[in-house]
């Protein structure tokens, strides 16, 4: 039955080359932990992506309950955490996943760095990776404010004060992020929500696309 559906579609729009191109490619021996156990270091990039997918999925479901408003944000988080079936688990996935992403990302970066895999011709992909790193740090920073509890508020105060110390345009950067010159409040929460849920994920998807296209084009770097 499934085969028939597949054939029916394939006959008309020839999808086999498309998925072959994406999914059907050889994993070199030096990258395969089944051959050399030490090759597990090559898994960290994929693990980072895996956790990113978990973050996207759990985040999508969290926005079914979360409200980015200073009167209700904390209450909506409290409600989904205590009253909604499995809400604690979904928020837990998003909460812990946020830290795990950064750990995996750092391990991936260290592997690429110490193997020298960033060298010619892969410099561009290293740069894209660094941009991904900043994007994910930005996601962590903006997401931290959203529960709107004391820890969130004061962490954001600290982060904004760091941004303010940028030479010359520091004050403008801070105001642009927080939506007000002095207050960390209603406008800050709305902005951080927008940045966390729309702007940074859009950048993340674009950069991930480039990251993966480049690695497929250039292949994994050779054995040491």
């Amino acid at each position, binding site marked *: 039955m499934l085969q028939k559906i597949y054939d029916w579609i394939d006959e008309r729009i020839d999808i086999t080359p498309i998925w072959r191109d994406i999914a059907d490619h050889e994993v070199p021996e030096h990258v395969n932990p089944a051959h050399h156990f030490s090759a597990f270091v090559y898994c960290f990039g994929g693990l980072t992506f895996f956790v990113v997918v978990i973050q996207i999925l759990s985040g999508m479901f969290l926005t079914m309950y979360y409200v980015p408003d200073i009167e209700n944000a904390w209450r909506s988080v409290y409600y989904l955490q205590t009253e909604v079936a499995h809400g604690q688990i979904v928020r837990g996935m998003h909460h812990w996943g946020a830290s795990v992403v950064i750990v995996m990302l750092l391990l991936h970066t260290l592997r690429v760095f110490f193997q020298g895999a960033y060298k010619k011709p892969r410099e561009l992909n290293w740069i894209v990776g660094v941009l991904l790193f900043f994007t994910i740090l930005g996601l962590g920073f903006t997401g931290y404010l959203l529960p709107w509890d004391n820890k969130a508020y004061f962490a954001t105060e600290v982060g904004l004060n760091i941004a303010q110390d940028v030479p010359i345009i520091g004050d403008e950067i801070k*105001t*642009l992020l927080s*939506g*007000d*010159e002095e*207050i960390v409040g*209603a406008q800050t929460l709305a902005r951080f929500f927008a940045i966390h849920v729309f702007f940074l994920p859009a950048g993340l998807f674009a950069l991930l696309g480039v990251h993966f296209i480049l690695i497929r084009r250039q292949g994994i770097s050779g054995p040491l």
Partner: protein
Amino acid sequence: MSEGKQPVSRRQFLNYTLTGVGGFMAAGLMVSPLRMAIDPVLQESSAAGDFTNVKLAVEDITDEPQRVDWEIEQVDGWYESKVGKSAWVYKDENGDIVALSPICKHLGCVVSWEGSDDHPDKFYCPCHDGLYYKDGMNVPGTPPTAGLDIYEHKVENGMLFLGKAQPREEA
């Protein structure tokens, strides 16, 4: 068509025109969203010049710093709320009124005058033992890196009005 110049082909002309028009439309589309996003940066600072009566008569101000608390109406976009403010107020040796912000310049805790028995005649911050002299300047060797902010003040009908706390000029 002048000598030595490549004539623009029909294809090139269409390419340029379409790219130009498309670019113009794309740019036009983004003007309003971007202007909206940077609006807070371009807003004029409104708080300066707003003075609040802190319900303290000038004749009651002594040369001993006293704490005054008052409330201001804070407008945060669409959200209005009352926010508490505090200051330490005294008259210096010339009889001029001094109103100091109690926010420690180290990490933002709240300082108080003679807040510690071990440090008379100083502002004391309980978080990391930060100290300030009576004029609000930080005591060297303690955590704060600058003097306490100074409130703008004015006197009307014998009552003290306080405005915004301003950082000191870097010495």
